[in-house]
């Protein structure tokens, strides 16, 4: 039989804050008369050192089993009093703090009414606390290693900040080289600093870091597990080039008879079947693209191997699958360009001199298809250039958001053309809706461009443009303006990387209405996700520039370093829910309810099972369970109903 409770009440006067309105002594006398109440006491400040000592002494002297404190908000002193209980040798959950200050004394004028309300709340707690059970803090073993998916700038930054003697980082990049979209840019805004000079040393650091296992040209095929204990399956695609032998001399490229559109130039130029991602890529290693190489179409071509002086070509290379264990996963899958062909009135076709901003980055890049020469498709220099802002952006028909950086990108490109004299005498005209340039230095650039004769024409909606390409010229028709240009650049919206969709689903992350990954909170917890241990950074969660992508990488590292310490166990939430195996019918209703994907299905037992590491104790599943098989700790049905019964 359960032993009789020995209950104690401690009513705080909180100077006059409580006792000025609530007659705590009258309540004390009432409470003493309740069954199993051993003591009811009043003091001035229970949160003071003396007050805490009084509680501890009373618990010991009266052999109290559970206590109720009438005082202030749980937000202020629940933890204080939980510690007091621990010091007194009681389980910290054998306590209920009743807020008779903020919720009673401070909001009630009438003393009798305030006293009656406080009394009712304390009696409710009297009933409640008798149902409180002892809960212990739980710890689990955790792996401190980290998987970073995506080797763009934010992913690289996270990896560099995390990798150490005690913590290995696996950095997986689907392309042959690191750096992501930023490797396409010649210059960066607002300083026009050379992008390669800025980022290549960082990427080289990643390659050389002994605590980073770099898996380029690799894909994450599966991630299972939970915070502290994830397992990931990674497929290392065959490169057909031996990294240890290849010195990156380029000799193999010229003999290759295959030419295909180059995806790294956004299909502007051509590349061979054996190719580098871009000139100067890091790591600087070519790969053979199996889809286009003649050998894999049954032809006996060995031209690249014949040209290689270092025996670095291996046609027998195979995909290699491996499984790794990590404690945390960082998703850094970046963005891609909105396809302007989706805007029907524009009549955009990719083979004219109308380019997306990403294509144009390549056109004015020294490593691009024209080696940085600004040339039209027919090889002539353009005399006029129109830059169209907000393409596919801020428009309910397409993408109803601003990508934050496109205005700055177009201003940067204009400055680069003028400063580097890429096309002398060129007339540049911007068609814009609003000039959205936030970062320092951009305002000066904008003013300078205006002074230098760059035209800025404000239009209602650039998405209403119509292109008509005739005799090497582009005619632009807008409701308010007609223009003719030799070349057009479209600042297309930045959209989520479509290739990441499978991963996002696999990690059970939510997306917003535009397809970006939803962090736990867009402002106060912007890199965490509701799936504990999974972090989202860079443009995977919304469009970001280089600065913010790198900040995100550091933020992710900070979060993980703080929460997942090498060699330390992981403390998990105590107040979680659990499923009674005897009662659960395995209907899986709770599985669909849980926002944290904390409930799984044990197919052997035919039962739903809560993963205590992932559960955060909200209790939504408890309400949803048709069999009443789920209990929320400290907020069990009985406990809440006892409180309710006592209150009324």
């Amino acid at each position, binding site marked *: 039989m359960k032993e009789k409770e020995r209950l104690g009440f401690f009513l705080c006067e909180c100077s006059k804050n409580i006792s000025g309105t609530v007659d705590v002594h009258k309540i004390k006398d009432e409470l003493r008369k309740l069954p199993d109440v051993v003591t009811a006491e009043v003091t001035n400040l229970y949160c003071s050192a003396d007050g805490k000592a009084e509680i501890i002494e009373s618990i010991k002297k009266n052999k109290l089993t559970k206590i109720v404190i009438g005082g202030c908000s749980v937000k202020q002193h629940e933890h204080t009093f939980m510690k007091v209980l621990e010091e007194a040798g009681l389980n910290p959950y054998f306590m209920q703090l009743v807020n008779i200050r*903020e*919720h009673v004394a*401070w*909001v*009630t004028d009438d003393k009798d009414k305030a006293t009656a*309300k406080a009394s009712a709340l304390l009696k409710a707690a009297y009933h409640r606390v008798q149902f409180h059970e002892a809960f212990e803090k739980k710890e689990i073993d955790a792996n401190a290693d980290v998987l970073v998916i995506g080797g763009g700038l934010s992913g690289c930054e996270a990896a560099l900040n995390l990798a150490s003697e005690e913590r290995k980082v696996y950095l997986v990049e689907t392309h042959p080289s690191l750096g992501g979209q930023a490797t396409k840019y010649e210059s960066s805004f607002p300083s026009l600093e050379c992008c390669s000079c800025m980022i290549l040393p960082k990427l080289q650091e990643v390659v050389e870091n002994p605590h980073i296992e770099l898996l380029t040209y690799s894909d994450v095929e599966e991630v299972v597990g939970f915070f502290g204990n994830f397992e990931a399956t990674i497929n290392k695609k065959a490169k057909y080039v031996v990294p240890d032998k290849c010195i990156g001399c380029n000799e193999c490229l010229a003999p290759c008879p295959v030419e295909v559109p180059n995806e790294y130039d956004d299909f502007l130029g051509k590349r061979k079947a054996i190719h580098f991602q871009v000139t100067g890529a890091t790591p600087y290693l070519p790969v053979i693209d199996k889809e286009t190489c003649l050998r894999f179409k049954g032809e006996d071509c060995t031209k690249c191997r014949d040209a290689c002086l270092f025996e670095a070509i291996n046609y027998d290379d195979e995909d290699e699958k491996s499984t790794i264990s990590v404690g945390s996963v960082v998703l850094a899958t970046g963005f891609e360009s909105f396809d302007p062909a989706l805007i029907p009135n524009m009549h955009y076709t990719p083979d004219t001199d109308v380019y997306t901003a990403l294509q144009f980055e390549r056109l004015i890049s020294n490593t691009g298809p024209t080696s940085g020469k600004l040339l039209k498709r027919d090889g002539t220099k353009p005399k006029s250039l129109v830059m169209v802002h907000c393409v596919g952006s801020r428009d309910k028909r397409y993408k109803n958001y601003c990508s934050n950086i496109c205005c700055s990108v177009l201003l940067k490109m204009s400055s680069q053309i003028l400063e580097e004299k890429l096309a002398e005498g060129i007339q540049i005209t911007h068609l814009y809706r609003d000039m959205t340039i936030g970062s320092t230095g951009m305002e000066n650039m904008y003013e300078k461009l205006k002074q230098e004769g760059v035209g800025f024409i404000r239009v209602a909606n650039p998405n209403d443009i119509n292109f008509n390409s005739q005799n090497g010229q582009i005619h632009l028709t807008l409701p308010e303006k007609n223009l003719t240009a030799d070349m057009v650049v479209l600042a297309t919206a930045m959209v989520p990387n479509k290739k990441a969709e499978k991963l996002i689903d696999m990690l059970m992350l939510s997306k917003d209405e535009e397809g970006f990954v939803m962090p736990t909170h867009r402002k106060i917890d912007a890199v965490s996700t509701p799936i504990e241990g999974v972090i989202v950074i860079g443009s995977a969660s919304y469009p970001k520039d280089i600065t913010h992508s790198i900040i995100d990488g550091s933020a992710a590292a900070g979060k993980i370093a703080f929460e997942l310490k090498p060699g330390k166990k992981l403390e998990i939430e105590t107040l979680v829910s659990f499923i009674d195996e005897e009662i659960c019918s395995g209907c899986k209703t709770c599985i669909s309810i849980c*926002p944290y994907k904390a409930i799984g299905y044990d197919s052997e037992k035919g039962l739903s099972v809560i993963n205590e590491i992932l559960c955060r*104790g*909200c209790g939504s599943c408890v*309400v949803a369970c048709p069999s009443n098989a789920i209990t929320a700790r400290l907020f069990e049905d009985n406990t809440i109903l006892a409180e309710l019964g006592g209150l009324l």
Partner: protein
Amino acid sequence: MTETRFEPNIVAFVCNWCSYGGADIAGSMRLKYPSNVKLIRVMCSGRVDPEFIMEAFRNGADGVMVLACHPKDCHYIEGNYKALKRYNMLKPLLDQFNIEQDRLCLDWVSASEGEKFARVSREMNERITKLGPLNWEKAIGPVRSTEVLS
């Protein structure tokens, strides 16, 4: 003889993260509201079982409030939406129990909305005062609350 004014008994289920905090702020701002609004804290409004609401009515509550985080602000992502769905399900059913729909209310109170917490409490109190006491025995017939508690 003077008639004593009816003072309703109102239970407010408040979520730990937003509405409990809103009630705290009402206190810090010394905003007065009727003392017959009494709080029960749950971690999330999604924990409020429609059965708790019926149990409150059965035990003598004349009105019940469920106060939750604003849409998109839930600490547990979507618990407030679950509370809303359950509220929308229960509310029309109240008619069949001879309980006026106005005796149940759901509202969003953030951890900074002391003003709103006090206002919502005052308005609820006015509504329920006008409706008068809920006579459960008359509405439903005799059922003992101990049946659920035991």
